């Protein structure tokens, strides 16, 4: 039976609370494997594990519950070991590295912040700030929308203006929040947000960060800011060196 691994904790970690379910259907009970001064939060792995909603949620849920009971290094979804012994071997082989990571991330949580423009608001800004855009827009409107070339020209100018604001606003988000966190890492590229950043901070000191986001949102109604957290520090764990 292969073993699904959720995360790595210190040897004295109590494990997630009773009744927290792991991946699979029916859900596998979550167990704790100990080796040396470390522990791994694991469960039996179902025969055919796929990235399904239920299993993604289970992964996140186990890590959130275990993380609340003590520092846990979250593994990426879908990490499967041949058996329990291989897991224990990993804990023994890279013990020093993982203990260092656990010290660094002790009591820390991640907040992920994303933002997009509210289109109408940002267009309004672009038009208001650029005389050329304003003149073109007025001319197009006066001639019932303008020729194909006219519309293309206006659209391109506006697109450039919006892009410039994306860059500007991404920096503004970062500048407003970075001082309130210990560390930051970019979120995965791909999602189409103008900014996608993860911040690391102490679990017991998140209020100033969350308040700063709220203030920033109020001061920038042309942005739609979304914050997710507290999360296990997914974006701040570092793999063990290849030949440690």
């Amino acid at each position, binding site marked *: 039976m292969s073993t699904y691994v959720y995360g790595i904790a210190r040897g004295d970690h109590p494990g997630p609370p009773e009744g927290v379910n792991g991946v699979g259907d029916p859900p596998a009970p979550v167990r704790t494997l100990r080796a040396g001064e470390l522990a791994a939060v694991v469960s039996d792995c179902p025969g055919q594990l796929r990235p399904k909603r239920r299993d*993604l949620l289970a992964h*996140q849920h186990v890590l959130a519950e275990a993380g609340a009971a003590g520092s846990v290094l979250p593994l*990426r979804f879908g990490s499967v*070991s041949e058996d329990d012994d291989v897991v224990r071997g990993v804990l023994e082989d890279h013990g020093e590295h993982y203990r260092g990571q656990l010290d660094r991330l002790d009591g820390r949580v991640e907040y992920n912040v994303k933002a997009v423009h509210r289109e109408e608001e940002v267009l309004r800004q672009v038009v208001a700030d650029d005389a050329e855009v304003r003149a073109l827009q007025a001319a197009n409107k006066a001639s019932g929308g303008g020729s194909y070339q006219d519309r293309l020209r206006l659209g391109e100018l506006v697109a450039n203006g919006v892009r410039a604001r994306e860059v500007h606003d991404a920096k503004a988000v970062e500048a407003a929040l970075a001082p309130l966190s210990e560390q930051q890492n970019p979120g*995965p590229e791909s999602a189409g947000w103008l900014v996608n950043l993860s911040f690391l901070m102490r679990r017991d000191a998140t209020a100033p960060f969350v308040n700063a986001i709220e203030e920033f949102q109020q001061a920038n109604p042309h942005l739609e800011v979304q914050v997710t*957290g507290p*999360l296990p520090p997914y*974006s701040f764990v570092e793999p063990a060196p290849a030949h440690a």
Partner: protein
Amino acid sequence: MTVVAAQQQGGSGGGSSGLYDVLELILDRGLVIDAFVRVSLVGIEILKIDVRVVVASVDTYLRFAEACNRLDLEAGPRKNPGLPDLVGEMTESGARGKSKGALSGAAETLSDAFKQGASSSGSSREEERESEPAPRKPRRTTTARRKEESE
């Protein structure tokens, strides 16, 4: 601002709130250990496609020009939308299909990725239904943005 409390309470293990917002982190961040095998994410790799927020394309330019012509500069921001502009809305959906660029793309990309993941991996109907995570969230987001666009 949307605050998503990712920490789920209780031991039920249910509830889909926040899954969409942490999906990319669960799938793309977190510790990778060489000695472990990773479950195949075939179909979900589409998440890695780089979607630029504003796509430089003729479709995008025309869409922006159209949106600008509909802007009422006299009105302040956050105007009550009133009756939707039906023609505008139809044009909008047409453009979405083609360019799928710009601001509304993000949630759809995730949702498309998941549907693909489901269809390539689901073998029974029940599985396919289960593998669509939190369909409420992206739909709501898309509706909200479309409403803004047609204001």
